[in-house]
């Protein structure tokens, strides 16, 4: 039995339906969500990313990292999502492979806010309190409370110059953690698998000038769990604990804990020796059966 036999067995290969242009267009839009959860990847790459219907610049500075909703974006914090129209030619689709959810977005926001708040406090050190993170704004100019979820959704659009944007559909929240004089932050993204907010399922090569430890595990329910710690090779700067959890029901979860009060992408000195939650604590939160889009 050899390769030739298998090739013969495969027989005539039908025309490919793999849309490389669509994949590239979609991955370009995915990039901004990925970088939001991997801030140093963004700064090391020095990238400008087209996303959410407008160019979003992730650069050092107090206003960096915000996603400024474009005029075409639909903020549907409490409305029922309508079936997305066909994406423009060459932009690819949203890429979402998981089934639609039956829960109203407003109900999901209320439920997830309660579940994540309880889970984070339960897993944090005794005495930890949650405060509003100054970066928790959505849409821009609308501040959100500690771990108050918001729904990011927009249709895929193609701009006159050919750039593609939009196609988002996920829930996000963040909070600053406070314990005595020590501060940290927690950041979470929950979305349907295949979309922009899908968690990673593979450990990638370590970024340049970064120390990365990454472990891929299977969860007790067949989940794919990636546990990553990122820190600067120089030893200075913040530390990020990140878990990517792919659940079998179609929910994808990205959960970050950093030892800075606002966001590690701004650099500076840490506000506490370690992030407020360990990798195992983050995994414990993400594997909570109530942390799902399919309750």
């Amino acid at each position, binding site marked *: *039995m*050899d*390769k030739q*036999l*298998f*090739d*013969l*067995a*495969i*027989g005539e*290969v*039908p025309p*490919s*339906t*793999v*849309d*490389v242009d669509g*994949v*590239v267009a*979609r*991955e*370009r839009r*995915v*990039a901004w969500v*990925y970088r939001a959860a991997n801030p140093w990847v963004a700064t090391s*790459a020095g*990238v400008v990313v087209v996303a959410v219907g407008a160019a979003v610049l992730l650069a050092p500075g107090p206003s960096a990292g915000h996603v400024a909703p474009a005029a075409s974006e639909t903020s549907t914090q409490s409305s029922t999502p309508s079936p997305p129209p066909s994406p423009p030619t060459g932009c690819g689709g949203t*890429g979402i*492979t*998981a*089934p639609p959810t039956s829960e109203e977005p407003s109900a999901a926001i209320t439920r997830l806010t309660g579940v994540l708040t309880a889970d984070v406090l339960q897993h944090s050190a005794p005495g930890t309190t949650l405060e509003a993170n100054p970066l928790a704004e959505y849409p821009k100019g609308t501040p959100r409370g500690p771990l108050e979820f918001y729904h990011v959704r927009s249709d895929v659009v193609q701009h006159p110059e050919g750039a593609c944007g939009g196609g988002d559909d996920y829930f996000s929240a963040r909070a600053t953690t406070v314990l005595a004089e020590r501060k940290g932050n927690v950041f979470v993204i929950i979305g349907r*698998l*295949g979309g922009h907010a899908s968690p*990673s*399922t*593979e450990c*990638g*090569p*370590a*970024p*340049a000038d970064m120390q990365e430890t990454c472990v*891929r595990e299977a969860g007790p329910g*067949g989940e*794919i769990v990636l546990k990553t710690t990122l820190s600067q090779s120089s030893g200075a700067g913040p530390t990020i604990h990140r878990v990517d959890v*792919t659940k*079998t*029901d*179609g929910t994808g979860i990205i959960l970050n804990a950093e030892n800075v009060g606002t966001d590690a992408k701004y650099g500076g000195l840490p506000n506490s020796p370690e992030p407020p939650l360990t990798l195992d604590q983050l995994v414990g939160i993400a594997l909570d059966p109530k942390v799902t889009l399919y309750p």
Partner: protein
Amino acid sequence: MKRSNEAGYRDYVAARMEVLRRTAYLLCRDWHLADDLVSITIGKLYRHWHRAKDLAHLDAYVRQILVRTWLDERIRPWRREEPTESLPDVPVTSRTDVEEREGLVELLASLPPRRRAAVVLRVYCDLSVEDTAKILGCSEGTVKSQTARGLDALRALVAETPTPN
């Protein structure tokens, strides 16, 4: 990704598209799903391309993504095969060359997933035991035993398959 890097990515994907599709088909025996798996795989590769492009064993890295994507997709509820109440009637005819060839793929599909992956990686992709073990995340001994059992099962199934008149 920089435009220059993207050109390299596109060149790589174009050069490997055929073998990736064929490998995916051997794993899942469904061209639509195979193309889905390849799409997901090259999407994941795109995210890591700026670092992955310099890997010495880039092909092995991509095969690892493909195989794991397939193993992952199998556990998704919406990907699972649903049982039907009754099997459709199939006319019995003499086997043609095409059926013979398809028979081997069907026999391959009857193997447990990880054993099937081991056979495809070792025999079709011509990978070493060591590389296969890395991709499947298991020991070299497990790869040897899975491949041997898989090939034994295939040979046995081939022997049981009636030959054309």
